[in-house]
C-alpha cells in the first residue's frame, strides 16, 4: 500500500465533514477492536483468559474485537480491560492530521503495548537518563536524535562544538541513551550516564 497515496485519498474525503466525522468514529472503534486482539495475542491469551482477567464473559471479548459489532465499549469497559492488561489508557482530542496518520499505519505490531512490569526496567533507565541530563545544570539543552544516535548539545556551545569537530580539536564524551530513547537494542551498560560533574560543554554521542 502506498502510504502517501492513502493519506492523499483520505485527506480528499476528510474535506467532507460527514465523512471525516464518520471516519473519526470508525477510527476509534476499529483501533480499539484490533488493538485488543493485538494485546491479547502479544500476551498469548485466549479470549477466555482475557475475559477472566477482566471479569467478562469470553463472548464479550469476542464482540469487543469485532469492528462490526453494534455494541461499542464504554470508557468504563476500556478501563477494566486496561487494568486486566496492565496498560495505560489515553483518551484525548487530536487534530485530524493525527487521525489520518494513525489510520494509515495500521500494523498489528504497532498496536502492541508492554505491560507496566515489562516496561518498568526501560522506563527506570529512561528516567534516570533524563534526570542525569537535567542535572547537568544547563538551562537550555538542545537534543538531536538521528537514527540510533542521541546528541545532547548545550545550546550556547553548539557552534563551538561544530568547530571543534571540524578541526578535530577535541573528542566529545560518549554516552548511550537508555532503552527506549533511540533504539531497543541499546542499553546503559554500553555507555556512560552523564553526571552532575560532567562538563556542561560536553557533547554525548551514542
Amino acid at each position, binding site marked *: *500500500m*502506498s*502510504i502517501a*497515496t*492513502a493519506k492523499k*485519498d*483520505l485527506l*480528499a*474525503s476528510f474535506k*467532507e465533514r*460527514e*465523512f471525516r466525522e*464518520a*471516519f473519526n*468514529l*470508525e*477510527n476509534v472503534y*476499529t*483501533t480499539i477492536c*484490533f488493538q485488543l486482539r493485538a494485546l491479547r495475542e502479544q500476551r498469548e491469551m485466549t479470549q477466555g483468559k482475557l475475559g477472566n482477567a477482566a471479569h467478562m464473559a469470553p463472548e464479550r471479548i469476542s464482540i469487543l474485537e*469485532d*469492528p*462490526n459489532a453494534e455494541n461499542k465499549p464504554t470508557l468504563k469497559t476500556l478501563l477494566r480491560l486496561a487494568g486486566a492488561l496492565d496498560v495505560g489508557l489515553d483518551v484525548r482530542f487530536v487534530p485530524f492530521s493525527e487521525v489520518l496518520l494513525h*489510520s*494509515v*499505519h*495500521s*500494523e*498489528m505490531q*504497532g498496536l502492541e503495548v508492554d505491560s507496566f512490569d515489562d516496561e518498568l526496567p526501560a522506563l527506570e533507565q529512561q528516567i534516570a537518563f533524563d534526570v542525569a541530563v537535567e542535572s547537568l545544570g544547563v538551562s537550555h539543552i538542545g537534543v538531536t536524535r538521528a537514527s540510533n544516535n542521541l546528541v545532547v548539545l548545550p545550546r550556547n556551545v553548539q557552534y563551538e562544538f561544530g568547530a571543534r569537530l571540524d578541526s578535530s580539536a577535541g573528542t566529545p564524551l560518549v554516552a548511550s541513551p537508555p532503552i527506549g530513547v533511540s533504539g531497543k537494542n541499546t542499553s546503559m551498560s554500553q555507555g556512560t550516564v552523564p553526571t552532575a560533574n560532567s562538563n556542561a560543554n560536553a557533547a554525548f554521542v551514542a
Partner: protein
Amino acid sequence: MNQWSFYDYIDERGTNPIEEWLMDKRAVSTKARARIQRILLQLAGTALWTRPLASNLDDYVGIVEIRIRWMNTQYRLLGFRGPDERQFSLLVPAIEKDNEFVPVSAPAVAITRMKIVTGDRRRIIEHRYS
C-alpha cells in the same frame, strides 16, 4: 510495512466497479464508506484475517469475503489473495440478505474475475481510500 496492499478490479471498459460502488451514495452511504475504508486500512496491516470479519467461500475456492456491517446492511467485498504476494484484489461488491448474495451471481463473477486478473495484471489498480 503493511502486510497487504489492496487492489481493485478493472473491467474491460477500464472502469473500476469497486470504486464506483463505494462512491455511489445510493449503494453505500457516506458513513458506511467510512467504515469500509477504515476496516480495509486495518486489514492492510493485519497478516492473519479472522472470522467474522473475513472468511473463505467454501464453494468458490480462492475467494475470500470481507464482511462489513453498517446499520442493518451486510456489505460484502469478494476478492482473492493475489495476483502477487501480499496483494489482495477486490473483485465484486455485494450485500448479503437472507443468507444470499445480492447480486446472487457475485461469487461466480468473482471466480471469473480472479481468473482474468491472474492472467492479466493490468486488470487491477491500487485501491483508493477516498
